[in-house]
């Protein structure tokens, strides 16, 4: 009667031989196929969001001359340029006691591309006592690209850059703040100082940035 060993030894040898053969034959092709898979690339999901805002302040302290501030976006996809009225103080605001008029403040936003300037919206004109609810602003849509193929994140990013290159610009946004004040209706009185004005406007501009990620791994 054959012993267990008489069965196990040839069975183990057969299984081991088959295992070695299968690995020797398949492993090189597996590695090659893996390289092909990673070379062909996978679908990366592109998510657009606005990058960190670049800001500059324009501080106006008199009605004599306008002040400007500029923000430049170099080789970017502009997303938004907006103005924020950070402060507005006019000592002649009430006017009645001194007869001094409130300063009329004007804020303009312009975009300059390749030397050509274009005004954005209508200039906002207001007084410190009657601050505007909105200042001129520009918003631009993100590129309509949600999927790219890539071997890895860097490759996917390069693919996105290539597809959106046409929209990339060197843009300069300029805010100009100026003020005028109507002449006083009464002669200036001794001991009454000239009215003071302080207006601060922040210009911020953002560009579109993106992340390229592989979608969720689980198909279940």
């Amino acid at each position: 009667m054959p012993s267990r060993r008489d069965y196990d030894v040839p069975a183990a040898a057969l299984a081991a031989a088959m295992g070695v053969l299968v690995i020797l034959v398949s492993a090189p092709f597996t590695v090659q196929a893996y390289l092909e898979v990673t070379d062909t690339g996978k679908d990366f999901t592109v998510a657009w969001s606005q990058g960190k805002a670049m800001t500059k302040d324009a501080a106006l302290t008199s009605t004599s001359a306008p002040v400007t501030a500029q923000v430049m976006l170099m080789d970017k996809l502009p997303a938004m340029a907006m103005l924020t009225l950070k402060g507005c103080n006019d000592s002649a605001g009430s006017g009645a006691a001194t007869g001094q008029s409130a300063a009329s403040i004007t804020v303009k936003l312009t975009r300059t591309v390749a030397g050509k300037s274009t005004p954005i919206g209508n200039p906002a004109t207001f007084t410190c006592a009657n601050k505007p609810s909105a200042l001129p602003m520009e918003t631009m849509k993100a590129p309509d690209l949600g999927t790219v193929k890539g071997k890895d994140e860097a490759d996917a990013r390069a693919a996105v850059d290539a597809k959106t290159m046409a929209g990339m610009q060197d843009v300069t946004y300029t805010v100009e703040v100026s003020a005028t004040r109507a002449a006083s209706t009464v002669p200036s009185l001794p001991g009454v100082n000239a009215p003071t004005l302080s207006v601060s406007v922040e210009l911020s501009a953002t560009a579109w940035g993106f992340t390229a990620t592989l979608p969720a791994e689980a198909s279940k």
Partner: protein
Amino acid sequence: MSSIQRGFARLGFQKNIDRLLEEAHSKAGLAKTLAAKDLIVLGVAGIIGAGIFVLIGQGIAKAGVGVIPAFVVAAAICAVAGFAYAELAAAIPASGSAYAYIYTAMGELPGWMVAWALILEYAVGAIAVAIGWRNNLLALINQFKDSDPTTDLFSNPDKPWLYWFTHSPLESVTTASGTVLHGILNVPSILIVLFCTLLLIRGTKESAKFTFVLVIIKVAILILAIIGGFLAFNASNFSDPLPHYAKPDGSQYDATGFFGAVQAVFAAAAIMFFAYIGFDSVSTTAEETREPKKDLPRGILGSLAITTILYVLAAFALSSAAHWTTFVGDSVAATNARGEPFGYVFEQNGFLQFNGFGFGALLVRIGALIGTTSVLLVLILGGVRVFFNMSRDGLLPGWMSTVSSRGSPAKTTLLYGGFTMAFAGLLTLGAAVDLVNIGTLFAFFMVILAVWIFRVRRPDIERPFTMALWAIKGRDGRPLVPFLSILGMLGVVALVFSLDKFTLLASVTWAGLGLLVYAFYGVRNSKEAHHRHVAASEEEADPFTNGRPAGTTRDE
């Protein structure tokens, strides 16, 4: 008999079914706590994951309205496998699923190879689902962040720790402002695997109760998603129902015309098939089932039927709510529609939108999170049961089949959970993720084949449930050409070839590794071989009896 013949005979040693039945009733086994209802719940829990909320968009991009028959085609292939599982589960009521059935019907080496494939399926599946769970969680949390578009909560250079501790060291992202962030540890994935592992160590019944709650919630959310889709019903979406468009490389995709439509439906079915994977995990719990012969077929086929109805309704609702063109292309809108089809349709139609907040998308995300939690539970449970059964058969070390005082294989669960935690926390799967699918497809193929072979080899075994084979039978009534089995196997093969080349080749290499482990450990330690030699030495007979009851001969 030459030594080579003895070697092949040894590789084909079948598990003695009488001993298997005896083991299933032995006191040392797992606690018998599960009824048919629990098994249906486990099946639905394993089947409905996050996939249905995503894959359906990809299916519509392939087949348009043809996604509806695609679900039926995928369900039909799964049903053949489901019937086969049900027949074998009822006839061979021991846990171990496909492994135990194929060991019994076809022999030790085929059984080992299926178990080896299932180990990869369950392990890769658990890691992938744990990582997917993290992605769903981050998407859910991101929906609550403030409306400032300049901040993405988990890729924010001002709070890099949020990225560090939610991503593995192999993951990195270049943020919108150009900063590169690298992950350190995927903590969310580790925590969810830890939670599932501890729940399973507490006992199968406890985890089944928890799973029941999850299933109710995710089915409710799926039904809500279906209702949302039907509310956006637009009959015009059924005009020009099949996709046809120019690809970026200049070639044409055309699903119109009979052959184009059939091809598109099968291409979509290959995608939709993976939304059904999981029903087979029910049969891994046979030993914990009170009446396995009745309850296992009910559990397998019941869960498959429930999910097929839900999936077909979901496909109908979504393809009637949005035209296929919505899902095609590389635009932001098309990508969103494919990535989150229900959420996208809800957003477009204002379903469950209040004050600009998308409650519809939120519900779908909660559904996906719950779906992945229950799938993770089922995957860890299934993987542990395969290890448990292989160990009990001597093919893996014995400590893996020890049972805790609560009736669960605590040590193996801890090992399996720890392995999953380590990999999910530190790695990504990349191209290896499709190995989940090849393991399942191999098991399906072998189970369908095993039914046929087992009918031929052991027609005497009591079968409380039998699948129709549509077979040409021999004079002795044994099936010679079972058309349904052959159709089912061809369907599985067609799906196998829809997978990429790397997945196919990597699974072959994995099989080679399995053969080596079997050769150097399994062969020597197999308890089946031991039992046969003991029985043979008592009767002074050859141990090569092909799994027939002790005392019978090969030619009986």
